[in-house]
């Protein structure tokens, strides 16, 4: 019972007491890390502040009802109309076209890479595909205008030189790698044991992929789709170049139209005096854009929560 002599005792007890210095430094580090995490919140606050504070001036002059219901968007003209739906329609139609390409194509590529292709193909194809995301979008814009549009005009002779269709298609191609790469990650996170279970039942690869892997990875897939949607809604240069910048309330992808983003760059590049109502419209438009992406995001969060990975 004398393994430790008496003089040891208080020392050991001391050691067990909380070490104040260490505690303080841990707290400080935690505070610093928290501050870093909070930067993202500040960014959001900053974005909302900048958009709202300028938009307030705008809405002081234009009623929200007009903003939402007017069917013309001519803020810079003598006879000014501020019907945001015109831009929203262009944004939604072009995004829809893009997603009609990107979601199926991205998902198919993801399934193929994660369930069919051998690992070498995957290791090479994925980064190469991601290069698509690295091409400056202005290059895509000219690709749409100079190559895709003429090809499409062969198929649809009545297609005008600028259209949401060709801009949307190219935008879709641009988004494919985002969707494919994120979906593939989500599918590969599905544990092998589930796949083995399915194969042990005698299912084929495709059946396993569609009936077991995809449902299991659904929340990840949803996340990738949501990101794809935000990319489409927020894409600027392709639309500015190839979609025609014509404020046109239309739901027909075969027509040219302006989108929220293309309007914003147009004004940002233009000769408009700051402080004028025309200039404030870009903040109102930006706010609308933010709200649209926010809606999709909330939808996405909800989907994710509903289909949280349950394996």
């Amino acid at each position, binding site marked *: 019972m004398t393994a430790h002599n008496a003089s040891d005792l208080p020392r050991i007890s001391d050691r067990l007491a909380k070490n104040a210095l260490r505690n303080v430094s841990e707290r400080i580090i935690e505070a610093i890390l928290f501050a870093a995490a909070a930067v993202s919140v500040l960014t959001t606050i900053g974005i909302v502040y900048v958009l709202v504070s300028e938009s307030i001036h705008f809405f002081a002059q234009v009623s929200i009802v007009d903003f939402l219901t007017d069917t*013309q*968007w*001519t*803020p*810079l*003209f*003598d*006879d000014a109309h501020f019907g945001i739906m015109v831009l929203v329609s262009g944004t939604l139609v072009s995004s829809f076209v893009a997603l009609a390409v990107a979601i199926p194509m991205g998902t198919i590529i993801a399934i193929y890479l994660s369930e069919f292709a051998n690992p070498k193909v995957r290791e090479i194809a994925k980064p190469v595909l991601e290069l698509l995301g690295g091409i400056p979008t202005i290059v895509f814009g000219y690709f749409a*205008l*100079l190559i895709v549009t003429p090809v499409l005009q062969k198929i649809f002779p009545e297609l*005008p*030189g*600028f259209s949401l269709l060709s801009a949307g298609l190219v935008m879709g191609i641009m988004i494919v790698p985002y969707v494919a790469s994120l979906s593939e990650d989500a599918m590969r996170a599905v544990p092998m044991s589930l796949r083995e279970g399915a194969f042990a039942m005698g299912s084929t690869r495709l059946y396993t992929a569609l009936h077991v892997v995809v449902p299991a990875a659904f929340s990840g897939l949803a996340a990738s789709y949501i990101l794809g949607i935000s990319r489409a809604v927020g894409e600027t240069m392709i639309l*500015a*170049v190839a979609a*025609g*910048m*014509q*404020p*046109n309330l239309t739901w027909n992808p075969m027509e*040219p139209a*302006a989108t929220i983003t293309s309007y914003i*760059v*147009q*004004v940002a*590049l*233009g*000769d*408009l*005096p*700051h*402080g*004028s109502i*025309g*200039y404030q419209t870009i903040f109102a438009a930006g706010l609308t854009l933010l709200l649209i992406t926010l809606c999709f995001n909330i939808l996405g969060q909800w989907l994710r929560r509903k289909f949280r990975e349950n394996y």
Partner: protein
Amino acid sequence: KIDGSSTVYPITEAVAEEFQKAKKNAIKVTVGISGTGGGFKKFCRDETDLSNASRPITAKEMEDCKAAGVEYIEMPVAYDALTVVINPKNSFLKQATVDELKTLWEPAAQGKVMKWNQVNPAWPDAPVKLFGAGADSGTFEYFTEAIVGKAKSSRGDYTASEDDNVLVQGVSRDVNAIGYFGYAYYAENMARLKGLPIVNPKTGKAVEPSGANVENGSYVPLSRPIFVYVKVKSLQKPEVKEFVEFYMKSADKLVREVKYVPLPQSAYDFNLKHVKDMKKGTVFGGKNEVGITIEELMKREAKL
């Protein structure tokens, strides 16, 4: 430090390049493109030394400058001729009058005038495809003022772009297209486009868009002077002063090179004289005017 209109940018850029070369890169010049409005905003906030402008300063901007204590000298540097262009395969359009263009472009035409024969019965029953400058550009403002008679008053259902190459593409691909943009873009793409002669309202003669016609003042109303504004305070800096002098001396050659139409040399000399005499202010009094000639401008008395 220079900022402002994209229309004036090529000229100023050329000058800046030559100037730096001449000074062996000892002096740094930056040229930005924020648009005439954006340029003036910075100019009147005392952020830039020179401002490129494709239109005269407005009353509001004059006030801003005054509030910030910024004084300036206005210097016309070149003509910009707006060119109305059509597809080279277009066979029926030989010329157009201002009135015809007005019928086509005025706000009342929106959604109504969709066929060529609605403008002129002699023209065919074919759809009109319109291309034009973005609504926040000086080009747009000037075109509407010159043609429709009221600045910014235009129909909205046309393909607008800040990027004039996009317009070039659009017009060159569609037989029924008509569009307008700066002369330089037409000059570089003569193979793909046809410039539409415009009937001079005074003489009644159709005038082709060309350097010579602009210079001799017969291409009206679609030619306009473009400007550089220099801050009086900055002229005390030797490098700014030198730059302005260099600008005026080499303007004739460089303006030609970037496919704009130079002013007569006398106008440049006149500008330099203004600088020497510190003749501050604008001669426009805050309003834009159409079809004004450089000789008229030189006669006017500038006001702040």
